[in-house]
């Protein structure tokens, strides 16, 4: 479904991403791991068009998307959440998700109809599926950090993506919240048939839910393989796992 081939991104002299490779098959849960600064977030930003790659190829469903702007890539079916909470702070929880739903329905430009009456059922369905129902009238700035991270995912669902990219979905969460979030992600993957690409620092989570793991180190792809093989790989152990 997603094929990243030899992608390079430099910031001045710094090679943030250097010849990265990544393959995601439909229906899989794929993790990207690597130490801080390995280039995981940069790689995600390249895939979703928030950054432009210098070299290389990014194919989504067989088409090159590396030159497209973020909103077009989103409409092609890639949704994402952000590592640092990245929501609409002055809007309510409901409106946050509704903006995404309206955008997918092509109603963002509707001028003279109250937004309160559009896309209501679908927005509520999404809020229900992530467990934020009952908090939909709250202004986002007043939510707990954990709820804001969940809202991140809910906003991304508003676009009905085929591939959902989650950048550290449980960062800053308590152990209970982390557990609930992972359950939620697995359940979403099951019920919606989502393909998920994520990165995460918690190795227990990564190794328990991923079908395939890509290891990054200093912008390079060390390897992408099944969890067992990654665990056994000596290069990975010295570069990363051994360091813990």
């Amino acid at each position, binding site marked *: 479904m997603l094929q990243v081939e030899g992608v390079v991104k430099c910031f001045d002299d710094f090679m943030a991403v250097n010849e990265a490779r990544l393959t995601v098959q439909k229906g899989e849960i794929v993790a990207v791991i690597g130490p801080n600064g390995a280039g995981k977030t940069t790689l995600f930003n390249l895939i979703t068009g928030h950054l432009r790659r210098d070299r290389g190829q990014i194919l989504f469903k067989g088409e090159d998307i590396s030159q497209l702007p973020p*909103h077009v890539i989103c409409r092609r079916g890639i949704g994402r959440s952000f590592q640092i909470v990245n929501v609409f702070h002055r809007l309510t929880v409901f409106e946050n998700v509704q903006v995404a739903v309206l*955008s997918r329905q092509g109603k963002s430009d509707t*001028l003279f109809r109250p937004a309160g009456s559009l896309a209501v059922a679908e927005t509520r369905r999404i809020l229900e599926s992530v467990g934020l129902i009952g908090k939909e009238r709250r202004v986002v700035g007043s*939510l707990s950090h954990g709820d804001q991270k969940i809202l991140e995912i809910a906003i991304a669902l508003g676009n009905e993506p085929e591939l959902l990219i989650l950048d550290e979905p449980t960062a800053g969460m308590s152990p209970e919240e982390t557990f609930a979030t992972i359950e939620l992600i697995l359940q979403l993957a099951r019920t919606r048939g989502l393909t998920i690409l994520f990165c995460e620092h918690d190795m227990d989570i990564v190794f328990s839910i991923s079908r395939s793991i890509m290891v990054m180190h200093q912008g390079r792809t060390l390897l992408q393989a099944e969890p067992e093989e990654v665990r056994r790989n000596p290069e990975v152990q010295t570069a990363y796992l051994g360091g813990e």
Partner: protein
Amino acid sequence: MFKKLVSAPGIGIGLLFFVVLLALPSFLPRFFVYILGLIYVTSLLAMSLNLLVGHGGLFQFHHAVFYGVGAYTLALILVKTSLPTWVGFLAAPIAAALFGVGIGWFCVRLTQLYFGMLQISLGSLVWAIVYRWYKFTGGDDGIHGIPMPGFLSTLNQSYYFILVVMAVSLVLLYLILKSPFGSTLQAIRDNPQRCAAVGVNVKRHQLRAIAVGTFFAGIAGVLFVVLERSVFPDLLFWVLSLEIFIMCLLGGWFTFAGPVLGAAITVSLRTFVGKYTEYWTLILGVLLILLIFFLPEGVMGYFTNLFKPKGKETGERGKA
């Protein structure tokens, strides 16, 4: 489950207020009727700016240009052509929106301060042309004694016209703000990057908002001509742009009607304090400093926060 756009008492209070304003000219001396008219015109101008600044997060630094373009378009059509009056009334906001989109087309390529800087330069260019082109625009003299149709011949008639047009415009602006277009615009204000990630074409949406905002600025320009029967280059000068910017700040960016309050305060200050001293802006400046320290959300913002039901938006902070 979800709140209706306006509550029944809300409509009632609005209508009552409107009726009171309609009745005012019967009691008030001419001068006050004129000042009220000026407040309505300025309110609409400030509201049109606030759609872009407060709700759109755009650094619309030179909004007065579009107000001036609207006013000049009407004036020139009435003075220089024999076209019917209604053509001028219609053409003015359209011309303002065209200028808005023309200048905005370049500006939306930049962000924040750079957007504002470019708009100031391009807008000043329009001002300079109006200011110097004596044969066409009358240069710094402007155009005076613009003929008005019969139904606008007295001050009171102009007052009613301005009040009705302003009221209708405010209702339209409110509907736009509450529409999907409006909520997407506010989402862009809060987080353009995220908005792009949910499939919104941010720049195109901003440009459309500019078209809407400058259209209403053009309407305000028309109302100014109805009130004053003259136009002059000050209407497009950056000082006015700054003044209406301050009105939005004064009333409260994030409220709907805040700019109306800001316009009323500023126009009153200019009129009543300006009578005693030409340094009335000094008082405005002090007011602004106090405001930034004590009411950062603006006067209206302060009062709406005051009356907001407690507990609805607070809670669970810091749980994680």
